[in-house]
């Protein structure tokens, strides 16, 4: 483990809610990346929804950092807080959400901005493309009107200028016959074309950060690849940073440079994509990858693809949230593992990272997926005893 890690000072630069517990040193503060200042720094971001007296902690101290122009993937299973945390960046969460922590974009704190500043930010500095292009375009408005609206929100142009810019944007996203499509309605376009329109809308304000929230999930494989290629190309042409949110690790591996793995509303592992795949540390990421070396796996055994249930966000377990499902878990894991830069550029939050001397991974039976959390716990204890003999 590295010695020179910076620990994150709690209670610094963000709204204190009394929610921050005493398990410091919690999330670590990342030292500025080498090529210039970070574009986006998320620190101990927490989002809590209050619904019917119940509190749902959708995001629980998320921290990550991103330099300009990067293509970063955020992955994690359903409900891990990917969408909520990225909507928090743009102030798009409903009134039932309480947001604390810090989001700095280009040195400016975004939490606590008023509605007017947020409106300038949305679509201006940060833009977003959503999952389902059939639902995210207004069915009763023409494509042209929907793009023009975005153009007008960020540029002072006359009617002709707005239209010219809108058509130019449609051309930029390679929508065939943009002049004709301008006068059509969303239902007249295919899914892939609609998503191109969504991207054109997102580009209207020349954003420096584009968030694609599962932008290709609803599309077929071929269209998915085309849209991803388009995003990669646009990023290079326009020099913007892209966050792609996905629960598809394969997709992230093919396109992203950096990967943040989220679990239960936190970042649990963050590394350049190569590092992550060659030296996976988090048992959760390993489970996502199904990357237990084949030698250690019994023939015909089940792949340990994240056994157990995703955590209940209103009642997280004590200590590491992955503990009930983790084959490596020990009593140490009742204490919360800090998210630290344990190796250069490789961040994770785990007491027993895989492939290190602290690894407690069971050698044989880890391959047999325990069905429930209780079973998982039973399994690992049984194993510890086995290893001791």
């Amino acid at each position, binding site marked *: 483990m590295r010695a020179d890690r910076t620990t994150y000072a709690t209670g610094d630069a963000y709204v204190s809610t009394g929610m921050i517990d005493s398990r410091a040193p919690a999330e670590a503060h990342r030292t500025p990346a080498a090529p210039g200042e970070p574009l986006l720094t998320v620190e101990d971001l927490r989002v809590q929804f209050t619904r019917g007296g119940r509190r749902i902690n959708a995001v629980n101290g998320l921290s990550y950092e991103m330099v300009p122009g990067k293509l970063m993937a955020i992955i994690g299973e359903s409900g891990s807080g990917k969408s909520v945390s990225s909507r928090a960046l743009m102030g798009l969460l409903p009134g039932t959400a309480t947001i604390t922590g810090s989001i700095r974009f280009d040195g400016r704190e975004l939490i606590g901005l008023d509605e007017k500043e947020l*409106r300038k*930010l949305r679509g201006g500095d940060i833009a977003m493309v959503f999952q389902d292009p059939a639902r995210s375009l207004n069915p009763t408005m023409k494509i042209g009107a929907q793009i023009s609206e975005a153009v007008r929100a960020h540029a002072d142009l006359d009617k002709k200028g707005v239209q010219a810019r809108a058509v130019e944007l449609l051309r930029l996203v390679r929508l065939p016959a943009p002049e004709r499509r301008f006068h*059509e309605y969303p239902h007249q376009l295919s899914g892939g074309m609609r998503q191109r329109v969504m991207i054109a809308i997102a580009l209207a304000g020349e954003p420096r950060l584009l968030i694609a929230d599962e932008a290709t999930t609803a599309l077929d494989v071929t269209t998915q690849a085309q849209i991803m290629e388009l995003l990669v190309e646009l990023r290079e042409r326009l020099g913007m940073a892209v966050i792609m949110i996905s629960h598809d690790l394969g997709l992230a591996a093919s396109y992203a440079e950096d990967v943040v793995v989220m679990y239960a509303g936190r970042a649990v592992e963050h590394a350049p994509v190569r590092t992550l795949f060659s030296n996976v540390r988090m048992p959760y990421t390993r489970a996502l990858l199904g990357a237990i070396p084949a030698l250690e796996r019994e023939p015909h055994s089940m792949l340990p693809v994240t056994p157990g249930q995703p955590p209940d966000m209103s009642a997280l377990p004590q200590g590491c949230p992955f503990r009930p499902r983790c084959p490596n878990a020990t009593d140490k894991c009742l204490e919360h593992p800090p998210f630290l830069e344990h190796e250069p550029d490789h961040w994770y939050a785990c007491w027993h990272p895989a492939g290190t001397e602290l690894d407690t991974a069971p050698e044989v039976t880890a391959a047999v997926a325990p069905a429930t959390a209780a079973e998982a716990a039973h399994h690992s204890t049984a194993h510890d005893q086995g290893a001791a003999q």
Partner: protein
Amino acid sequence: MTTAALPRVPGDRDPRVSPLRRVTGSPALRLVGKRLLMAIPIMLGVTILTFWVLSLIPGNAAQQLLGAEASPEDVAQLEEQLGLNESGVSRYLSWLGNALHGDLGNSLVSRQPVSEILADRLPVTGELVLLAFVVSLLLAIPVALLAAHKPNGLMDRISMMISTLGLSVANYVLALLLVLVFAVTLGWLPAIGYVPLSDGLWANLKTMILPSAAIGLPLFCFYTRFLRGDLVDQLQQEEYVTTARAKGVGSWQVLLRHAFRNSSFGLITVVGLNLGALIGGTVIIEQIFALPGVGQMLLQAINTRDFVVVQAAVVIFALVAVLANLVVDLMYAVLDPRIRYGSR
């Protein structure tokens, strides 16, 4: 609606489609045709039912006209004169035959042609309904927009309170309250009576304000609640609203251009469906305010067993309901591009 499996683009001319098919293939025209065809069984059903119910009520027009003291011979003579001695079926069929030729017959009681009576009475009911509708919608839309702009805000709470109150009062109770306050206590408006539009707009309006308020206020409450709820649903649940917000457009623009546009479909449906109930309401209100409208005519005709006039009123009411549904469907077709281009 059957549509071609091929994706259609407006302006596309499919050479396989004949010019005639192209015209009749217009979704709007097909819709009108379908609705009008459906109107036929509805009208037949409604008139037959009315006829049958009237025949169940003891007494007929001859007895009602001559009074209780009349001799059975006189009654029988008048019955023959009015054609009441024939069987119900043949009376209905001859009425139907004439009606199909545009002749709704003469009132059994006043001998006046029904078309003349309707010409007098329809404008009164029409004005009442129109005023109630226009005023309730003109008030409900801005109030609902203000309420939905800040859910649970001050405007929202106030409008919720008023509309809950307004919906819990029956319209005849409201009518009496209005009379009590504005006619009896304040003396601003007449309690009953009717002045035709030809005697001056203000004189006419003075007699129409209270009756149309009695009908329109509950409507206003209902529309406000409905529209507010639908707008809030759109704002909270629809993904295109998030897209609009993510573009950086202002909250009023999101509300008006996006949410309201889509909520208007629901509102139109509700307004159209309401029309039937509304016309039912006019019968009571015209009675309370002594307005010489179709509703009042209907009640009088039932009392005198004047089946010719009753039938005319029923036909009118049913026709209005059918037309209202047609208008709703056509508005849908105009407002919703997915229907306009026949892709759904």
